[in-house]
């Protein structure tokens, strides 16, 4: 069973390498943000598989943390690409 989990980890690492190609090459900034979002998702898988391989349950809190940070990063980048600033100033005051 340990060999199976190591093999699964290696497959996820290879898919992260294939995503890094898109992160380097991607023609637009939006392509790079989409690739970073997918890399964050693959990193969550990697944390889950590592917590099985090393036989601890202390890493499992990192899963929620990475999910929340990846989502906030994607939203902030999309606001920046659409409007040019992330937090809009209120002009009515």
């Amino acid at each position, binding site marked *: *069973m340990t060999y*199976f*989990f190591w093999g*699964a980890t290696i*497959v*996820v690492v*290879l*898919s*992260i390498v*294939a*995503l890094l*190609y*898109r992160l380097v090459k991607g023609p*637009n900034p*939006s*392509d790079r*943000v*989409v*690739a970073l*979002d*997918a890399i964050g*998702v*693959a990193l*969550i*898988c990697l944390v*889950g*598989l590592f*917590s*099985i391989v090393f036989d601890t*349950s202390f890493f*499992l*809190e990192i*899963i*929620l943390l990475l*999910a*929340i940070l*990846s*989502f906030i990063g*994607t*939203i902030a*980048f*999309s*606001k920046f*690409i*659409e409007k040019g600033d992330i937090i809009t100033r209120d002009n009515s005051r």
Partner: protein
Amino acid sequence: MTILANILIVFFIVAGLVFIVVSAIGLFRLPDLYTRTHAASKSSTLGVMCILIGVFLHFWLIKDHFNPSILLGVLFLFITGPVGGHIMSRSSYIAGIKPWSGTVRDDLKDEIERMKKEQNIKE
């Protein structure tokens, strides 16, 4: 009983790995930002959900340790993955990134022109 649990865990993790690899190949090969967002948001979300369910079943059935934070992570990824893909592709369309040259019809173009015209009248 352990063999049955192992079969279940291996099934979920292999399904998740297949979806993760398919999303990586999709980001590698597809020609356009929008098709790449389609690949990334759908299939990598399903892949990470399957792998996290496999991890949850491993800790529950083998180690006797019920960990609800993994289920909370699965629910959060199920909500936020497609929302992230949608808002990314919409903002990059508004910023002016053209679709692939083989695109047949473009319904969002008329809608965004109408929206810009209404905003110019209002201001």
